[in-house]
């Protein structure tokens, strides 16, 4: 279930991010080049090896006078890029707050707490409260599958599961339907239920969710407090791919 990775030809080109010179290979995005160089750009919908999506907008960087998603913007030699600035982090914090109030994220009792990328992002960005009025949307739980559960309360529509299913698992289990505030994660099966889909427990799509909308059943709270992913590491020390490894490593059946 490895995500795989393209191996573009090496190029000696470099760009500058926050004063640091970062090398990149031809065709590489700003995000991939930065991560390869050990420089963290906040992101939620990006995963190395999956087609860039550019939807969460947390990875926005300033390039000259413009602003672009670093996960979808190809690196260009000599670019001057700003990433870790107060203005960008303020915008990222606001976006994260909006994600929190759109869904129903009950961190204190959530089984993903401590292993949740959204929660870790909020800590990283210094988010102390939701700021905006909570939507309290009613969202459907799909527990029909024998081993995987879909709790839409926590979905942030990053489409990592959609892409993982299509590009790595060779399936087409998930999709996002609707637009704007009515956008929602759906299951491509005759009944619309996970039980009728061809999702299997070893699929990357079953493990890639950064927020616990897709969970392996009956393995909650097995990792003690103090040993959870973000008890041990800060989010800017690692990328979401490490979170996924922590999760996969704990599903032993």
């Amino acid at each position, binding site marked *: 279930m490895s995500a795989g990775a393209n191996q573009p030809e090496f190029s000696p080109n470099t760009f500058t991010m926050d004063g640091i010179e970062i090398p990149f290979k031809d065709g590489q995005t700003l995000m991939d080049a930065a991560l390869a160089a050990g420089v963290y750009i906040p992101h939620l919908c990006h995963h190395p090896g999956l087609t860039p999506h550019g939807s969460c907008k947390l990875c926005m960087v300033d390039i000259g006078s413009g602003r672009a998603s670093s996960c979808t913007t190809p690196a260009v030699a000599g670019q001057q890029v700003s990433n870790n600035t107060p203005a960008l982090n303020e915008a990222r914090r606001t976006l994260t707050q909006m994600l929190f109030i759109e869904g129903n994220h009950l961190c204190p*009792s959530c089984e993903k707490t401590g292993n949740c990328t959204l929660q870790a992002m909020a800590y990283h960005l210094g988010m102390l409260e939701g700021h905006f009025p909570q939507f309290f949307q009613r969202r459907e*739980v799909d527990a029909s599958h024998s081993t995987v559960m879909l709790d839409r309360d926590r979905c942030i529509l990053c489409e990592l599961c959609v892409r993982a299913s299509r590009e790595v698992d060779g399936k087409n289990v998930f999709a996002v339907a609707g637009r704007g505030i009515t956008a929602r994660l759906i299951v491509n099966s005759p009944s619309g239920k996970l039980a009728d889909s061809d999702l299997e427990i070893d699929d990357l799509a079953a493990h890639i969710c950064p927020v616990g909308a897709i969970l392996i*059943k009956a393995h*909650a*709270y097995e990792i*003690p*407090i103090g*040993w959870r992913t973000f008890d041990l590491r800060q989010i800017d020390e690692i990328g979401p791919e490490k979170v996924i490894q922590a999760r996969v490593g704990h599903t032993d059946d």
Partner: protein
Amino acid sequence: MKQDTTVPSGNNHQPGLRRVAIDPLSRVEGHGKITLMLDAENHIHEARLHIVEFRGFEKFIQGRPYWEVPFFVQRLCGICPVSHQLAAAKAVDQLVGVEQLTPSAEKLRRLLHFGQVLQSHALHFFHLSSPDLLFGFGSNPAQRNIVGVLDKYPELGLKGVKLRKYGQQIIAAISGKRIHGTATVPGGMNKPLTVAERDTLLAGIDDILTWCQDAVGLNEQIHTAHPEHHGYAAIRSNFLSMIGSGGELELYHGGLRASLPSGAHVFDQFDYRGYQQIIREEVRPWSYMKFPYLVELGKQQGWYRVGPLARMNNCDMIVTPLAEASRRRFKEFGQGGFVHDTLAYHWARMIEALHCAESINQLLRDPEITGIKLRAEAGEMRSVGIGVIEAPRGTLFHHYQIDEQGLVEKANLIVSTTGNNQAMNESVRLVAHEYLDGHEITEGLLNHLEVAIRAYDPCLSCATHALGKMPLQVELVDPDGVLLDRLTKGGNGLIERIV
């Protein structure tokens, strides 16, 4: 039908009565309000302890997966979340078909629970009740709080703080946090106690044992030396508690025993999974808190008391020697029969704290406490799980029904304070009858009412409040609803009359 006519029956409201409302209560866990119904001669006719906060946990866990439940419902409370987590975990064990935990897992859960009860009991006596008992019920309110205790009795106050801290250290070692940690998993525990953690806890246990003995002695002395405490808010009641297989005091797992005021058993060693056969809950329109009663005795006579006093009266022995010796002195005080003094709750509570300390000492020295086999093999899934535990404040029931997908369909929680609902009303009525008559309302009188409530250590919302910060209000209303008098006590202790 068994009956004991000495049990006062629940009163029904009669129209045309005057009201005295005390809103809110202070130094209890949560927010309550007392209304005293006066008759035309200004005598107390009825007391109502209103629980005005609505929580709704039973409703909003519907549709959630069963494995989430222990960590969702523990958020009911910031004082005894471990009890809620463990009661729910016991129910979840049944849902996954586990009848018997591994020895290490069961001992860890017991250790966790003893730590919980110890810290909660320490909090209640030293932080909430000792100001009343040490300074007197009607003493200066500016002094009658934990800060006053620390000022005048610094050694005693500090022991209380350290006792609570020790209980929380146990909770943190096992569940990762002092409050709202995660320890249980279906059929077991998620983390062993390390040898280093065990040794750290052992290093402090001798002081804990000594301080608990001191606390028992202090409470015994306070209660026996003050005859006026004996009849204070005292009511003859039935008692309900969990009991060990040998009739011993049991806080984690056992059968249910209910007794009449005389000591005769209504039932004994009853499997709590059938609790609906023996306990029902009555809803009254003026409170969100239900009124449970023993089916066999009916609504009027079937109400009961739970918690330390119930457990101390109901049990035949305590398996740890120091607490057992204390229990025997408690029984001698009751001349072999049940002790019905409401203020004896404090004494019983400290005997239990001593039992917790002794049990913690034993468990920490048990080699299996650091064992690493913590998960039992899951069996066949079931649709119903019922977990019962003796929480610090009394018998706690968690009942869940799940669908074939593992989502909660129904839930019923009878929290400990609910068990004392009618008893608290009866105690308040007694005290009000004695101390509050006519139109004159004073702060001392108000606190006499609160002392009666506080003895039960009620957790009215299962939430915490800043000590001494809660305002207190009393309203006197005539039968036509006209406000005659209103007394307000601010967070600074100042009393203001607003008419």
